[in-house]
């Protein structure tokens, strides 16, 4: 056997091992899902758990079919999704813009520093009632909730990453006579992309919190409304259906951000 064949064999073994490992992981992940839902169903049927409180996968499924047929699930889901995506985009972009502003005007950043700390420490959902009174009990105030919850933390995290960019990159640009604007576009901004992506990932979750709480308060439409309605009429099948929808949609949003990350950051 020559060297080439020998290397090829070692490589094949490695690939085979990796494949096997992946299959095993996938297998157990599937088992967990199946076991979870089966156990839930069985426990509910045999009244090990109270079916009124915990419902069961089959009744959630039936409700799902009904709600799909009468188109209500689709409209509620679309509303919530729109609000969340808008809140997420507004919150993230505004946060990044504020961070850029603080970087551009260091004195402003020194002045507002204590206020940022206070705003960050404050639970933003507590502002909900004020927002609803100010903006009206409609989609605008819910989007504002989704945005406001992520805006301060985005500002702080992104601004910190702007400041931490190695000053020598700026020095390189300075030696070519670059303007402050060019420092920002050529070094500060691209160097902070990884941090921005990780804030995006955090913001996906935060926007959902803001929007659901907003819908709790406004109580007109959306998945948050379905939860609060189900709670009030003691229909926990409805509550759990909404929860499952939220879990599904937020994971999809998270996956989209991961995909975006791969597109944006080309280096290893």
């Amino acid at each position, binding site marked *: 056997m020559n060297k080439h064949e020998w290397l090829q064999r070692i490589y094949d073994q490695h690939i085979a091992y990796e494949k096997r490992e992946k299959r095993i992981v996938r297998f157990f992940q599937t088992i967990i899902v199946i076991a979870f839902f089966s156990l839930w169903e069985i426990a509910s049927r045999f009244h090990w758990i109270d079916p009124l409180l915990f419902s069961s996968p089959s009744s959630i499924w039936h409700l799902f079919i009904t709600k799909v047929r009468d188109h209500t699930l689709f409209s509620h889901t679309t509303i919530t999704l729109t609000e969340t995506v808008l809140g997420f985009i507004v919150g993230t972009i505004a946060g990044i813009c504020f961070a850029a502003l603080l970087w551009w005007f260091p004195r402003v950043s020194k002045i507002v520093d204590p206020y940022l700390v206070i705003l960050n420490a404050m639970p933003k959902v507590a502002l909900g009632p004020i927002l609803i009174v100010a903006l009206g009990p409609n989609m605008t105030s819910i989007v504002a909730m989704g945005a406001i919850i992520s805006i301060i933390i985005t500002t702080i995290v992104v601004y910190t990453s702007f400041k931490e960019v190695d000053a020598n990159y700026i020095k390189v640009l300075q030696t070519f006579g670059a303007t402050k604007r060019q420092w920002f576009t050529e070094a500060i901004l*691209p160097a902070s992309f990884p941090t921005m992506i990780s804030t995006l990932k955090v913001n996906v979750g935060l926007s959902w919190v803001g929007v659901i709480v907003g819908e709790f308060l406004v109580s007109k439409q959306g998945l948050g409304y379905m939860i609060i309605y189900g709670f009030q009429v003691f229909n926990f099948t409805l509550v759990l259906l909404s929860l499952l929808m939220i879990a599904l949609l937020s994971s999809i949003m998270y996956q989209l951000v991961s995909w975006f990350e791969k597109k944006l950051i080309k280096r290893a």
Partner: protein
Amino acid sequence: MPILTIDQVMHAYVTNQSAVLALNHLSLTVERGEFLSFLGPSGCGKTTLLSIIAGLIEPTKGRVLIEGKEAKTMRQTIGYMLQHDYLFPWKTIEQNVTIGLKLTGKYSEKTRKQTLALLHQIGLRDVDDRYPYELSGGMRQRAALVRTLATDPKILLLDEPFSALDYQTKLKLEDLVWETLKQYRKTALLVTHDIGEAIAMSDRIVLFTAKPGKIKRVVSVPDSLKACTPFQARQHPDFSPIFQMIWKELESIEQT
């Protein structure tokens, strides 16, 4: 006219604790095509001096003239190379080496081709579309050299550009940089801690004292060594005596 005149430069760093004198009454003239090395203990303000020459900071007192004009108006004639390559990791090698052209408004198909040709000439082939992380330390520093040379500066400031490399790479790069600078008749100022490197590469060596930074002495390298490439110079019989002399000089600086 000398290409660079440093005239009675003083510089102080101000912190919340105190104001510290970094450079004290520094005067020096450099002729076109000369290669100077700055040697001295750390804290002698060598990097500060380079930043002043590059027009990045203004001296507290005194003047720096490049071809008779104020340094800060002559930024375009200066190329600066740092200890690490500081290639932008999100740009390809081509984008990295042409960034100076773009920022100075000299970017055109012609200058782009010239820059890429220089990249190939110093041994970086088929890396135009690669990213810096795919290159070795020596290759990256070579790309950084091309980036610096791309805008065709008259004076090159080299701030310990070889100190982060392994010994073999360092020797090879010394030769490469030396030959490239001689070929294009560039003036160069090299900051280094390595006495051997200073002797092997330069025409004159400026010895600094520390705290505050001041010129102790300027040593001229013998013509026999100047004619050799850095690698040959290190083997030359004249190398050792001048090394000993500078060594003793630096010892005496550190003791005072």
